[in-house]
């Protein structure tokens, strides 16, 4: 049921026409391809959805398509806010801090803090890589994987990984149920 095309998310050529094509408009091929550009690949989106749900859960194709649209809208919304800030501050480049700031401003505080930490780590890694490529040291192989791969040492200070999403409880009680 899940269209598991494979896991090289950067390869965009596979998603040319049919898979992931949004159902909301049915123009000619030119517009279908254009819509591919404004949405993230359905396989990637579907995979993230599937992984957060229990194993017996199923996801309709239309739901995945809707989620694609929602994510694109999310990106536009946050980018717009970040870009406004840059514009006001007379800066030309939207950077990671602006995105984190925008997330906090728009109500996604739960994302902002962890993403700031993530960004900080990313910058450290990039800094190390830049230094080591200058010095040709032997730490090259370790640098990139450490923040992206599972690393038991890094897990310790942050506690156990849990699927429970704190953010769900923070809002109005209308749909909250104990799970």
């Amino acid at each position, binding site marked *: 049921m899940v269209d598991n095309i494979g*896991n090289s*998310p*950067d390869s965009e050529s596979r998603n040319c026409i049919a898979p992931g094509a949004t159902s909301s408009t049915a123009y000619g091929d030119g517009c279908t391809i254009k819509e591919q*550009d*404004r949405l*993230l690949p359905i396989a*990637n989106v579907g995979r*993230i959805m599937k992984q*957060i*749900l229990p194993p017996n859960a199923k996801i*309709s194709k*239309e739901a995945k*398509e*809707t*989620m694609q*649209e*929602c*994510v*694109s*809208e*999310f*990106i*536009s919304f*946050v*980018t*717009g806010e970040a*870009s*406004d800030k840059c514009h006001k501050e007379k800066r*030309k*480049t*939207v*950077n*990671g801090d602006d995105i984190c700031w925008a*997330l906090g401003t728009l*109500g*996604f505080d*739960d*994302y902002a803090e962890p*993403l700031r930490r*993530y*960004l900080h780590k*990313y910058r450290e890694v*990039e800094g190390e890589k830049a230094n080591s490529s200058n010095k040709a040291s032997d730490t090259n192989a370790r640098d*990139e994987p450490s*923040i*992206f*791969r*599972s*690393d038991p040492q890094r897990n310790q200070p*942050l*506690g156990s*990984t*849990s*699927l429970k*999403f704190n953010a*769900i409880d923070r809002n*109005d009680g*209308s*749909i909250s*149920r104990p799970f």
Partner: protein
Amino acid sequence: MRQAGTYSGLLSGGISGRTGPHSLPLARIKKIMKKSGEDVKMISGEAPIVFSKACELFIEELTLRSWMVTLQSKRRTLHKDDITAAVIATDIFDFLVQMVSDSGSRGPAPAEMET
């Protein structure tokens, strides 16, 4: 102060740890960012990377909220209407309300919503 437990996956890879550094294509994210407005001219290399994580969190949150609606209707298949209901019920997803309504949802959300 919120526990970082849920996000330990962030720094140790989580979903991305299995599919490579990022689970969403950075070039595509960048394209979408550029389309968001006239003002968006230059984007730093790290911005799509931050977004790739942010989008993962967003998808997870919206999916879980939608799933709660699915469960209330005693189903096991997450449908578009469940997403619509979750969007309407969540303040921070107000920016999506127009979009989920416009794309012609099939009918009233199955779950009861207090407005």
